[in-house]
């Protein structure tokens, strides 16, 4: 690596909260900034976050944290860096194309998640909203000098989109027939630091959870594509023959307000738990949001992790970032089949993967991860192995290489710039149209 590569300036942009309380997009930006600083010791790494949040220690002492108040301010900041990394770039970044390298973090299949969310109340005209999203994502790919995502399936999906948008011309393929220099894989990593619990969090603290109870931890939010009700039903039915089960939904107030207690799925779950009379007895919804540095205390008390969803196209392309915490804590998992990590859960094994909406299977899986000591020991060994495989310092390599290389292998700039202007224009029009649509 030459001197130039080592002294590069890199801006990691978080569009989501980065602070004492953060959800996966913020955590990812925070960890990427830290891992890049370690991988490229001479580089200047800046982490930009939306203003108005509490102070947080930088992921590495050399990483500078900067607050931004507007997109215009963000663009000015990015212009002073060689590389800018973000989950999405507003159209304001178009003038930067060809000056600052733009690395697009496609670790969630945005369009599919937004198709799920299109049912929600804030969407006025579903079809227009979906169309505007499509043009927005197409714009991201057009602006991107590098694309990285969490796994190979997501990579196939982004490559398919590049094909549709004429962003995979023969020049790109000829320079690198693996196309890894344009679309790479950076999974959601596992922090290297061992679990550091800081006193009791649930047992003896939350009324109703005793020292001898077995805790199933739903660690993370309840999204539109989760299925908490099947978990509640299973715990309710198991509760008829054992009294030690405690299903805990850890933190129900999402820091980015995307999914709160009033959002559909969680509301449904709370209602069902009340109906069954299990709320506060075997099912617990902890209010608030657990601070990032306090999660360890919860993980340390968990006997198993649980997260259920559906076997849909959303799960096919999802990388369930919350599982990564379970890997670090060596907590075996009960999860629904269909996503890429559930395949590992089943194959390695790291726990038990169950078919969707199958209460009986969930009941059997819960008993297995709680009571089968040999199986749990095997899972723990495998969890340690995958935690090592997914350590941030390992998974960051392709992105660090791109930053060090400092040049793009994307389609020719001129055409991309023209297409970006057109795509941004259509996006604005559709967005405006959606705003002016009558509320549903």
């Amino acid at each position, binding site marked *: 690596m030459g001197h130039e590569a080592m002294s590069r300036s890199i801006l990691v942009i978080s569009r989501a909260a980065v602070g004492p309380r953060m959800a996966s997009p913020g955590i990812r930006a925070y960890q990427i900034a830290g891992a890049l600083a370690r991988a490229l010791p001479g580089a200047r790494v800046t982490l930009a976050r939306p203003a108005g949040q509490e102070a947080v220690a930088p992921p590495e002492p050399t990483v500078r944290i900067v607050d931004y108040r507007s997109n215009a301010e963000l663009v000015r900041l990015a212009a002073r860096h060689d590389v800018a990394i973000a989950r999405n770039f507003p159209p304001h970044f178009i003038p930067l194309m060809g000056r600052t390298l733009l690395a697009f973090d496609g670790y969630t299949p945005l*369009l599919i998640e937004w198709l799920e969310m299109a049912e929600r109340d804030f969407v006025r005209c579903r079809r227009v909203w979906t169309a505007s999203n499509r043009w927005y994502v197409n714009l991201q790919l057009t602006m991107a000098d590098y694309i990285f995502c969490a796994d190979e399936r997501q990579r*196939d999906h*982004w490559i398919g*989109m590049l094909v*549709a948008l004429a962003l995979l011309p023969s020049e790109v*393929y000829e320079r690198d*027939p*693996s196309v890894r220099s344009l679309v790479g894989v950076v999974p959601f990593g596992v922090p290297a630091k061992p679990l550091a619990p800081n006193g009791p969090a649930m047992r003896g603290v939350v009324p109703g959870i005793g020292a001898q109870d077995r805790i199933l931890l739903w660690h993370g939010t309840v999204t539109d594509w989760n299925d908490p009700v099947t978990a509640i039903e299973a715990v309710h039915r198991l509760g008829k023959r054992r009294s030690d089960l405690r299903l805990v939904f850890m933190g129900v107030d999402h820091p980015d307000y995307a999914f709160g207690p009033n959002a559909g799925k969680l509301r449904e779950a709370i209602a069902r738990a009340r109906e069954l009379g299990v709320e506060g007895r075997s099912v617990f919804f902890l209010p608030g949001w657990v601070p990032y540095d306090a999660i360890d205390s919860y993980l340390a008390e968990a006997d198993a992790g649980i997260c259920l969803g*559906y076997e849909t196209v959303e799960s*096919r392309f999802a990388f369930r970032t919350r599982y990564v915490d379970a890997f670090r804590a060596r907590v075996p998992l009960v999860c629904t089949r269909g996503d890429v990590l559930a395949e590992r859960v089943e194959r390695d094994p790291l726990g038990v993967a169950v078919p969707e909406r199958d209460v009986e299977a969930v009941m059997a899986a819960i008993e297995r991860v709680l009571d089968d000591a040999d199986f749990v020991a095997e899972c723990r060994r495998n969890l340690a192995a995958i935690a090592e495989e997914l350590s941030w310092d390992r998974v960051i390599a392709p992105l660090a290489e791109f930053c060090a290389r400092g040049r793009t292998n994307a389609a020719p700039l001129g055409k991309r710039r023209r297409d970006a202007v057109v795509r941004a224009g259509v996006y604005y029009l559709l967005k405006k149209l959606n705003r002016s649509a009558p509320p549903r």
Partner: protein
Amino acid sequence: MSAPGIRASAQAQVLAEHVPGAQVTLAGQNADASGPPGAPYRVVAWTSKNIVRLVADHDIIVSSGLPPQIAPFFFQKRFVADLFSQYAMEWMEVGLQHYRGFGRRAWVERTRAWLSMQLTAADFVICNNERQRDSYLGTMLSLGIVSNRAFAADRTLRRLIDAAPHGIRRELPDWSAPRVLRGVHPGFREEDTILIWNGGIIQWYDPGTLLEALRRLGREDIKLLFLGASYPGIGDLGKGPRFQDAKAIAAANGQLNRTVFFEEGWVSHDDAARYVMEADIGVCTYWDNLETRYAHRTRFLDLIWAERPFICTHGDILAEEVERRGWGIVVPQQDPEALARAIAKLADDKAFWEHCRRNLAAARAELQWEVTQRPLIEFCRDGWEPVSPKAERFPGLVQRIAAYLGRRAVYVWATKP
């Protein structure tokens, strides 16, 4: 018949057998089209003249390339696009081989326009494996084919696009059939271990590494046969530069017609089976690139059918199965040492060879065409409403047919000799 013809015939067969009351027509490109005796389907040759008539006469049209002429029937008929390769990558490789400069760009743009047209016209898409499906789903998302209604109708989108992999021959290998190599072909002795490369040596294959591995092994009792240099219809595809390179390397190494043999004529589908059965080990080497990532190497299916353990390069989806299910050995690209070790292992370790053979035999049931083509059978049998509404797709289809015709014209003009 090469792979596409084999696939279409097998689809016609299983549709005729499993869709009650269906009248199935297999329309081929060759003028002398005829099916096997007693086939439960009709065979016709299609031309640009009768294609419209043929479409008009049927309810469901399945094709690996829906022509623009279907547009007038878009609302009356059901269309299935059988995209059994990731064409964006496969044809990229073809383009790199045949064209330069503007012609190459025009070719790639033509491919893209063609794919957009297929994905928009199709009421149901099938492909060969999950990776192809994931990438095509990405393309469909960008094109707006996965609308809110489509998504609401089927959250898995399996009724919009699904994987229907290539199957294997239905009949069991007839081990009593007369031999074609040992004792017949002068180069092959009774005690030899025979490696077979059963398929063409196309642009994206790497026979050089294989020849180098054999040279390093330096064993007279290990023979390699390249089978299938010619492709019906596209005769020169198999005798391109890679084939010539392979022959030149074999000649320079002194291997040609001593330990390495080239069968240059086209071997019929039935005869190919006998060559494969007589071989001990299958082998195919290529590059670990994006073409490989999405490829479904149909030649491996004959090896599975004949229970021949095989060696292949990493990166392919079937190579993953080879590794996971113990069908043979997977080697890194361009690694003659690893390849030599793999060949020696399969040639000398009879217990390992037998173990692989048993694992291959275990896959026979799941690779029957009526199993692999279940999504297609169900679409034709159950007649569900297209997941992506036709009315939503129509404006896009008109635009994409026009784009395709334009891109094709540019390509034809740009590559005129």
